[in-house]
């Protein structure tokens, strides 16, 4: 472990050049199945443990991690494959909870000290030979005795489905019918001799039948309730179910175990993918089930549906007027597992086809996220013989609304289901072989039929068919490969590939004038490459200001390193006495940029997908926050040779710098655009200004302009430019770091409007702070 690194002594963003080990070498190997017991101080962590998974793993092997503690402590466990956790930030601050979440491939973070995690070959970061690093965090004040066990299980037990039959009424959930002592005659193989027994037996049988068709390391918890639901002589809800919660991965709330980013998953599927329980995924107490299934306690009453009731027999009745409890239960539970589309299907709740945001009166306000079920749906154009994804960025709410009442135009394109022998349309030529989802038209003009769209099949005999069938199915049928696509697959997963962002200036089309100067500063195969980021932006009055952030790229996510004040993005001031910059403690921020699958993020939905890369930038300045979609301004392949792009600084003459982007032009000198970061007043307020060389040659001089714009959360206005001085650059070699040798020099004289203060240098030696050519 190293001593904290004093940011006060840094030049601007100089931290990136300082090779500072930020991870203690993991020192304690775990032996499979052997517990390690240790005391962990309150509010402390350890990254000492690891497990080496050997080569030649047997198919089906899983890694199970178990942590158990004493008392009421809250201890969490994090797992990362390959490279270690950082235990300090680049600024020397000890790792905090957030940093473990950023590095973790898996996490179990319930509010207790009993955690369990399973990694399998089908997990997003699949189990494979190599080193699996483990971090344990004690979030409670007192010291806690903990036991940590990592076990490679070649024949893992399945978690199955756990049913919770309430014994009392809680809220709208009544458990009394499960204990109804009314005598009953055993029926269809159900040996129960009371109504309550038969009900529980049938529910248990439905759960067992489903559990035999899906595998999950952590038990799926289902709360089974009775309640008075809608009921009349001619119409009644028999049962209803759904996931208790949905979850997703997005830049501010990472869940890297989910294959699709920015997409809702049912909590049971998300827990399975995370290899832990629902509370392990989202924190808190472990009291909530994954699914609630509610049955109508009015069914069987003489004034409801002519007295028809449930048939609790194990064997599906071929005929009869009663309702097959087991197939209805299996069907409803399958919805709870994630067989559920989430776009709006009720005109009264908002625009038809709108994505679910989880906000507002009905959950459809603002910009919603995709859902993983809907991402597998397709819109078929039968006339053209083409199809498009239902939730593609280029598919509008109106197109989805039309598909919902198209009859045969709503399809499923998930390859496993399309290619399944259970697909009744498999013999059709593509795209007419895409399984059909239920999209009836009711009324004129067409409207979705009372909610029955999207989440059901049109395939006779299938459990998830939109209409009840006799005899009631006992298998998932085509729903199995469909469920596989929403988180229930056992297929081996490929190792994930993460995006390496290009060194460039990055901008958001919706915030013209603001941007990031993002440059690779140092390769780090251990903790992630180090990037220097300068956020050039405007303050509340539209004046230019800058923030800096130095951080690691962790699995394609830039994580601004936090300082001792807890800030991952800093503002610094120029100190003329020491000719360096010092931390401005009056305001702090954070910067996280996720470069993976950003096109799926709501923030990027409106961005032209011609961009070579995209990133979702989550920033905080003080208490102000935002999420922007950013893309590179200049791609590395358009740079000239030699490439003199990057962040230049003056060595010991620190506290100011120049960001340069050069663009190759055929048969002519390159275009060079520059940002100058400089103190604009006697108190050292750092601002930025812009200067372009239409045709750059060493020693060329050009005008420098200060830019006036609009604050980060203000309505955009046209930026204006004011000439504030001149810049002369003599850049000849992409030298890096250390003290500049003098082969590269800069001269400038800048007077910020109204400041009466001029900052200047004459032939100041400069060198690159960042890797030339973007480290390519």
């Amino acid at each position, binding site marked *: 472990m190293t001593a904290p690194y004093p940011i006060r002594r840094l030049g601007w963003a100089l931290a990136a050049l300082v090779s500072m080990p930020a991870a203690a070498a993991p020192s304690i190997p775990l032996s499979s199945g052997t517990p390690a017991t*240790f005391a962990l101080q309150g509010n402390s962590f350890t990254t000492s443990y690891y497990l080496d998974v050997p080569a030649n793993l047997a198919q089906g092997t899983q890694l199970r991690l178990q942590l158990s503690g004493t008392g009421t402590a809250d201890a969490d466990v994090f797992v990362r494959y390959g490279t270690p956790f950082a235990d300090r930030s680049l600024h020397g601050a000890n790792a905090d909870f957030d940093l473990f979440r950023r590095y973790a491939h898996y996490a179990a973070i319930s509010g207790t000290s009993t955690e369990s995690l399973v990694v399998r070959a089908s997990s997003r970061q699949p189990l494979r030979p190599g080193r699996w690093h483990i971090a344990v965090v004690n979030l409670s004040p007192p010291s806690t005795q903990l036991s940590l066990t990592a076990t490679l299980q070649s024949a893992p037990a399945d978690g199955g489905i756990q049913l919770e039959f309430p014994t009392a009424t809680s809220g709208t959930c009544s458990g009394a019918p499960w204990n109804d002592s009314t005598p009953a005659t055993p029926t269809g193989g159900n040996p129960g001799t009371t109504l309550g027994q038969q009900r529980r037996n049938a529910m248990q049988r439905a759960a067992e039948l489903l559990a035999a068709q899906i595998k999950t390391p952590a038990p799926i918890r289902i709360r089974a309730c009775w309640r008075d639901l809608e009921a009349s002589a001619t119409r009644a809800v028999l049962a209803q179910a*759904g996931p208790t*919660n949905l979850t997703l991965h997005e830049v501010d709330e990472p869940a890297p175990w989910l294959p699709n980013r920015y997409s809702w998953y049912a909590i049971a599927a998300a827990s399975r993918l995370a290899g832990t329980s629902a509370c392990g995924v989202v924190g808190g107490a472990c009291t909530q089930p994954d699914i609630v299934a509610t049955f109508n306690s009015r069914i069987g009453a003489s004034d409801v549906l002519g007295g028809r009731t449930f048939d609790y027999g194990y064997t599906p009745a071929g005929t009869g007027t009663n309702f097959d409890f087991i197939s209805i239960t299996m069907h409803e539970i399958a919805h709870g597992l994630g*067989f559920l589309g989430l776009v709006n299907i009720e005109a009264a709740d908002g625009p038809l086809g709108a994505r679910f945001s989880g906000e507002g009166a009905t*959950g459809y306000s603002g910009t919603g996220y995709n859902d993983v079920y809907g991402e597998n749906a397709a819109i078929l154009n039968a006339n053209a013989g083409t199809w498009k994804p239902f939730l593609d960025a280029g598919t509008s709410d109106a197109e989805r609304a039309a598909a919902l009442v198209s009859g045969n135009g709503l399809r499923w394109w998930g390859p496993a289901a399309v290619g399944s022998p259970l697909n009744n349309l498999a013999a059709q030529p593509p795209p007419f072989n895409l399984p059909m989802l239920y999209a009836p038209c009711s009324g004129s003009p067409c409207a979705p039929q009372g909610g029955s769209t999207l989440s059901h099949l049109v395939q006779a005999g299938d459990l998830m068919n939109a209409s009840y069938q006799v005899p009631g199915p006992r298998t998932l049928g085509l729903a199995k490969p469909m469920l596989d696509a929403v988180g229930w697959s056992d297929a081996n997963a490929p190792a994930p590939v993460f995006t390496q962002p290009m060194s460039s200036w990055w901008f958001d089309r919706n915030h013209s004038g603001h941007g990031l100067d993002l440059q690779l500063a140092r390769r780090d195969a251990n903790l992630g490459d180090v990037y220097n980021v300068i956020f050039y932006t405007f303050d509340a009055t539209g004046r230019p200001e800058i923030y800096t952030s130095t951080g690691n790229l962790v699995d394609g996510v830039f994580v601004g390193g936090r300082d001792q004040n807890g800030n991952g993005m800093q503002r610094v001031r120029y100190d003329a006495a020491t000719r360096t910059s010092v931390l401005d403690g009056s305001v702090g921020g954070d910067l996280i940029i996720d470069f993976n699958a950003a096109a799926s993020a709501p923030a990027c939905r409106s961005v032209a997908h011609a961009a070579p890369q995209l990133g979702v930038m989550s920033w905080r300045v003080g208490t102000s926050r935002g999420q922007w979609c950013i893309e590179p301004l200049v791609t590395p392949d358009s740079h000239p040779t030699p490439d003199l792009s990057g962040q230049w600084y003056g060595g010991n003459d620190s506290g100011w710098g120049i960001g340069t982007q050069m663009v190759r032009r055929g048969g002519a000198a390159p275009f060079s655009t520059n940002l100058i970061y400089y103190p604009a007043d006697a108190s050292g307020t750092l601002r930025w200004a812009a200067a372009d060389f239409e045709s750059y040659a060493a020693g060329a001089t050009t005008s420098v302009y200060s830019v006036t714009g609009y604050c980060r959360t203000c309505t955009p206005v046209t930026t204006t430019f004011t000439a504030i001085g001149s810049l002369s650059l003599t850049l000849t070699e992409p030298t890096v770091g250390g003290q500049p040798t003098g082969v590269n020099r800069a001269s400038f004289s800048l007077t910020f409007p109204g400041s009466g203060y001029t900052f200047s240098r004459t032939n100041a030696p400069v060198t690159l702070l960042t890797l030339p050519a973007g480290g390519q």
Partner: protein
Amino acid sequence: MSPFLRAARHLPGLITWLAMPVAAFAVQPEQLPLGGAGAPAKTIAPLAVPPPQLAGTIAVIDADGQVALQCREVPNLEARATFLERAERRRLQEQENVQ
């Protein structure tokens, strides 16, 4: 009684020592205080939001007395308070953004 146990009888500390679990001798992990100003907090965790709709099976008896069972999605009305809370949090953040 073996000489060893006789000796041990007079040395209860030795028995205790021998009976200690192997793990007690294991290398203790290096540990550091959590960073972050003030008490550590689980400031980021995956979202957990209830779904906007559930799925239900509805029985309908038509004019001819035939029973049709239809599988339908039904609004999850109990979740709406959560959606409103989330909208309010966003509103407060936007208010914070303009101050």
